[in-house]
């Protein structure tokens, strides 16, 4: 085989038709706020844990809808509630985080 100097890796394309959303639907049932995120990033911007660890509630919520396993990021959460305070859509982000941890663990 010709050596191209790089390897073909598993595609990084998200194949949305193959993504399992059962657990995400369960999440929406338990915390309906999960459905109304507009991805503005306020939660991440105000997050004291994000400053130390790069955690982002917005990314986790998006990732779960795209079939990526990103919920480990939430481990760093201090549950301080700032994200809940700033969310313009009034999402109960603390409950969202705890519910994600329950469902995806």
């Amino acid at each position: 085989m010709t050596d191209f100097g790089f390897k073909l890796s598993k595609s990084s394309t998200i194949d949305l038709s193959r993504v399992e959303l059962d657990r995400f639907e369960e999440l929406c049932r338990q915390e309906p706020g999960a459905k109304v995120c507009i991805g503005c990033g306020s939660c991440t911007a105000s997050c004291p844990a994000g400053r130390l660890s790069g955690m982002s509630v917005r990314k986790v919520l998006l990732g779960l809808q795209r079939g990526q396993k990103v919920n480990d990021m939430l481990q760093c959460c201090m549950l301080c509630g700032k994200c809940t305070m700033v969310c313009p859509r009034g999402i109960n982000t603390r409950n969202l985080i705890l519910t994600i941890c329950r469902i995806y663990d």
Partner: protein
Amino acid sequence: MTERFNDSFHPFVIPFLAGMAFVITVCLIKAVVVVFQMESGERRRYLLSLLKPNIIVKNIYDIIVDCLLHVRLWKRNRMLGFMHSSIAFGWFMIILLGHIQVLLYCPDRISTFYYPIFFDWFIEGGQHTLISILLDLFLYVILAGIALAIVKRFYSRLFGMRRTTRPTLLNVIGLYSLWAIFPLRFIAEQCARSGNLTLAPWWAYSIALCVFMCVLPFSRYLHIPAEMMLVTMRNAHITISRPGKGIARVQTDSCPNCGVCIDACPMNADPANLKDSTVYLTRQIRRHNDRRVGQISDKCMLCGKCTSVCQVGVDGPKLRILARAARKYNIGPDFSNVRPDVPKSSGKILYFGGCMSQLTPLIGRSIESVLKKSGVEYKWMDRDGGLCCGRPLHTAGRLKEARELVLRNQEAILASGAHTLLVSCPICYREFKERYVLPGISVIHYADFMIELIQSGSIGLKEKSDICYVYHDPCELGRGCGMYETPRRLIAQAAGIAEAPKNRTESVCCGGSLGSLSLDFAHREKITRASLQNLYDSGADAIATACPLCQATFSRYSDRPVKDLAQIIDEQTVAVIDNSRRRETGCDIEGATLAKIGN
């Protein structure tokens, strides 16, 4: 006074004896289990406390005052107080006087311990002694209490209670048998005294006693013995540590289901939350309904109002935190490598604003301005963001993780060299007071600090503003840390002050509390509006509070200005002498004033 029969026994006493044996056995087993479940250190402390004379005296006094006379309930609601104390104290007196009666008039029967209960059956002509008259008097008092209880059951509004619990089957059986005991005793006694020795009322009386005692350990009436045990545990300073075990179990069992907490709960501004009051929590814990216990625990805002009105001292928030802690989540922040960036502040004040204060910058700014006016040297620990104080993790039941955060902050604060930690957020303040160990550093709330600055003349007051403020007691500062008067004194010096109908220990949570995990934004609005209405009822022009969460929550819906205490004080004070001169003249506030504040 003569005995009617040669035989000192009659079969109708059997139900009573059986009931008595049953209830004593079950309660003893329960007590032993509870003591056994306590952590060994606490168990020792508790058992030793039962032998100490001063604590024994205190226990007896508290049991009489709390469990028999229901003094706390009297203070809250006289009708309820009379109802409960007439039954409890009256019954106790009947038992006591009954024994004295036997001791005086047929001392050889004192060991037959059902004699005092069925005295008039066995003894003839005992009705004209002083003791007997007293006994009758107490029986009438009890009958009056029971009449009130019956009225209350069906018209609770007459007692000023808008809502009350719906009893379960066992509780209903207990209730009806309790109601039946005393009228039956009355009928039986009257019959016997008039020479009519029909057995029916005596059987009925004995059976009613038996039913009540058999139901007692499995109904809310367990609160009668449990409350006495709780008093002794409280006096031994035992704290809640394990869910459903030890003192937590005794607290749950002590709940008399009186329902005072239902009307008190701020969440009940929204009828959807009616079944989430502490009385339902204790009920579901007893029933081992884990699903409902979880729901009730997660929803609560932990404002602590139920505890402040509770007659027996059930600590609703603590029980809930424990229930939360029993659940597993994959949250375990690793803070081992995190070092909060704390400025060197040797010999200075270190100010901790907290996470929330970054969203309400006026608070920090006002505090900074007051500090500058006073010329005190300070450093702002988390101006660019810091570590959370740990209280949110703690209230969410993540006790171990909260501990980690506390340790990281603690190290950093100790290393800074500051002599005073100034705190503005009551959530953080409570955590610092309750969980941090900071030897050599005094933790002080800015209200205490500012009043000291004013009193020592370090800052000067302007002419009093003619705005009238109503002060809202934040849950964590008032019920949480017991600070009610200092903020009021501060406002009174700077402006007018009015009081809301419900204030201090009965202050209504703003609805923004971090304590609740599951209550979402949309469902908090009603709570906030109800809390605001209470403040509007004071007639004040503006609202003052001392918590960034209350501030943000109220200003969302309030029709009048909402200000933090710090902002009001900043607006109403001026610097006394300029800072450069202060340093030259050695007018050293840190040495003099702060030593005082620290103590």
